[in-house]
């Protein structure tokens, strides 16, 4: 029995200074997935800042530019890009609030932290779906 347990333990791969090839096979816990998605969504928002500011500019500058804003955002490709950015914002927002709560030592226990990571991921996707349905005029 003891031997069997030890065998199971030794079969589990141990990574130190993980490489790219191992990264593909490595299964992150939910908190890890939410964390790397937090980083990726933040980086995407950073890179898309000029686009976001341009859209904001067009929506605000004048009546005429507002019409331009409407015609830009009625394009399906632009809508898909916007929906991607909306997911980035919502995920970054929800995961960020989770970090603020963790900083206040709320939900730092292992199973709680795992559950809150799943909740954050699901809320991000669900809110994106709600906004997406509105964006594509389904309600």
């Amino acid at each position: 029995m003891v031997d069997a347990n030890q065998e199971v333990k030794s079969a589990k791969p141990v990574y130190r200074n993980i490489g790219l090839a191992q990264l593909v096979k490595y299964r992150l816990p939910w908190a890890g997935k939410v964390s790397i998605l937090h980083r990726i969504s933040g980086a995407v928002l950073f890179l898309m800042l000029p686009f976001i500011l341009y859209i904001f500019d067009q929506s605000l500058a004048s009546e005429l530019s507002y019409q331009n804003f409407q015609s830009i955002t009625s394009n399906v490709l632009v809508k898909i890009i916007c929906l991607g950015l909306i997911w980035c914002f919502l995920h970054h927002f929800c995961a960020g609030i989770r970090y603020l709560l963790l900083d206040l030592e709320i939900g730092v226990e292992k199973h709680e932290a795992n559950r809150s990571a799943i909740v954050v991921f699901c809320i991000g996707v669900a809110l994106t779906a709600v906004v997406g349905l509105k964006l594509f005029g389904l309600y």
Partner: protein
Amino acid sequence: MPIYQIGPKRLVVGAHYGLKEWIIQRITAIVMVVFTVVLLVDYCITGSATYEGWAGLFSNQFMKLLTLVTFISLFYHAWIGIRDIWMDYIKPVSIRLTLQVFSVLYLVACAAYAVQILWKV
């Protein structure tokens, strides 16, 4: 004296290094949460999306200043996050420093554009 000590006082690594950035990232995050709530509440009250309503909201001086503070918070927050990414993944100092400089210039340009947008309305 440890060998990584640079200058008479400053340590490049060690306790409290990065604490300022850490706390600024959290404060700026809270500012952005507040702004998001303000926008959501406005959307819930006005209900419809028209140019008059949207431009009217941002022609208000208080909203202009709140939006500018939020934008500055956003760019500072982004700087800390992007700086962390460069520090984590880019090891050669020359490339990392170049990327950091371009990130700062990019964000300053974004801030200038944001001011221009807000004070046109």
